[in-house]
């Protein structure tokens, strides 16, 4: 036995990890399992680990309903616009904070940091008033603006840490060759910081895709809702259609999983870099 364990120790770790990962991912599995079960099998006092029958009814019902379909459309619009605007602003600001010791840049960072700690609900209330005053309340642009502003602080710190990791000799060399500061950034630094820009873009896309608070407080018409608001509305006080709810949850996960799958490496690097080095 002892010899066996010694020889197969590496595999023992594999089995242990498989069990651990299985336990940790059970909530996701259970959601998908329920979404794929026919409604009559969902409400059971003796649930089975594997689905007894597989049915895609819950998914087709969701996507055929014009209201639920529009939630996905709205979410994609908010995600796309927010990601591009936030990443652009964060790239410029991150470059400035990384390369210049301008007076006042420290207070900019501090204010950004403060914005990350304050509860979002505290900001959502004046946003509600502001957007009402300028007539944007109840529209998707309001949600885009709110999300962009919430994302920029962290995205900026992320980009700053990427620019910090690039030796400034590189832009000095570009300057000697006759580039202006902006040209140096555009032609020399950005190609090097490509992965940083990608990671920031993914971060911004994910953060706006999952936003519940701003969309919940700034949108009223159910055809304008985003996916998280729609899902929250499906949790009834008395009765819940678990089958449909889990199907909506499964669909909500797919876009982020796709983004995450392709970019996990950069994200992990970016998150640790952003957090450790600031």
């Amino acid at each position, binding site marked *: 036995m002892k010899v066996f364990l010694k020889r197969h120790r590496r595999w023992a770790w594999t089995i242990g990890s498989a069990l651990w990962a299985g336990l940790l991912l059970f909530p996701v599995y259970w*959601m998908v399992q329920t979404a794929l079960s026919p409604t009559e099998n969902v409400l059971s006092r003796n649930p089975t680990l594997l689905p007894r029958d597989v049915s895609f009814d819950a998914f087709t019902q969701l996507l055929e309903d014009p209201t639920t379909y529009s939630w996905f459309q709205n979410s994609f619009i908010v995600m796309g616009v927010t990601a591009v605007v936030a990443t652009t*602003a964060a790239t410029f600001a991150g470059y400035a904070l990384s390369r210049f010791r301008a007076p006042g*840049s420290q207070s900019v960072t501090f204010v950004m940091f403060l914005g990350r700690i304050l509860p979002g609900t505290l900001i*959502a209330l004046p946003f509600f008033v502001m957007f009402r005053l300028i007539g944007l309340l109840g529209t998707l642009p309001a949600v885009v603006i709110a999300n962009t502003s919430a994302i920029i602080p962290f995205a900026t*710190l992320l980009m700053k840490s990427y620019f910090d990791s690039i030796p400034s000799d590189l832009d000095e060399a570009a300057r000697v060759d006759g580039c202006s500061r902006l040209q140096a950034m555009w032609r020399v630094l950005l190609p090097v910081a490509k992965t940083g820009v990608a990671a920031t873009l993914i971060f911004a896309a994910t953060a706006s895709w999952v936003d519940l608070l701003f969309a919940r407080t700034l949108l009223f018409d159910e055809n304008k809702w985003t996916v998280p608001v729609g899902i929250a509305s499906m949790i009834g006080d008395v009765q819940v259609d678990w089958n449909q709810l889990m199907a909506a949850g499964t669909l909500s996960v797919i876009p982020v999983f796709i983004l*995450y799958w392709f970019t996990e490496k950069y994200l992990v690097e970016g998150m640790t870099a952003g957090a450790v*080095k600031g």
Partner: protein
Amino acid sequence: MRSTAFLTRIPFARRFMREDVAVPYLLLLPAILIVVGTLLVPLFILGNMSIRDVQMASLDEVFQAPLTVDHYTSVLTDPDTWKSLRVSVVYVVGSVSVAFLIGFSSALLLRQVFPGRKVFRTLVLVPWAVPGITATIAFLWMLAPTFGVVNYILRSFGLIDTDINWFANPDTAMAAVIAPTAWKSYPFFTVMLLAGLASIPSELYEAASVDGAGRLDKFRYITWPGVKSYAFLAILFNAMHAFREFDFIYASTRGGPAGATETIAIRIYNEAFEAFRLGTASALGMVTFVIVALVVIFGLAKQVRSAMGTSI
């Protein structure tokens, strides 16, 4: 460049452009505008609403409403304010410690060299990518009283006789909202602590083995000191996150039952958007802002500075 060529005739502007004095500010401008427009202006509006008698119907004349200090007196004398502060502390400490334990265990496991390690690293980090609302409904369903799988498991092991209504019972509601919160946030600890573990030179462990150190000694004298600073930062970030958290609690209990899960963040929302007491909500928001600012400036100044980057 041509359109700005005339500027170079003005001595001040020439210096400004040649030495790139303006460039950093121009680059920062979009970010500054957004931060001012969406953080400082909102705080100004919030401050105004907190000292004025505003109603939902007269919201457009918010700056003309009569002045009052009633909102502050009612917020500061209401025992529920301090209760929600306590609830916030319990929620933050609870979710951060559970996430830390799961995240650290995962990191220690994934540090080992074994077949399939990369696949498992990706799998273990998956909850990170799950939207908060989706994590919440997954746990709402698992913890559902009659048909939930958790109660089913407890029933089949004979641990409970009657089903527990996890989210509706005042004794279990806090644990129920902590579960999805910790589940979504543990991958952050895993990533940070894996980075910390990778920074420990393996020679240290070899030397310790030569000296006859046991597993526990190695953990205490090598592993923990090596990852301590990473762990601290991860705890700080996660605590900040849990303090401002909205999604999990709003989607499951909305702060109930009887305020058992009503954190400060949720209380502000409920006051403003459920009870429509905008003035009280604003005053509560200002009090929270002051508390956060004091904690950041005095309590965590050093840590925050290092988190923001020592070079600035």
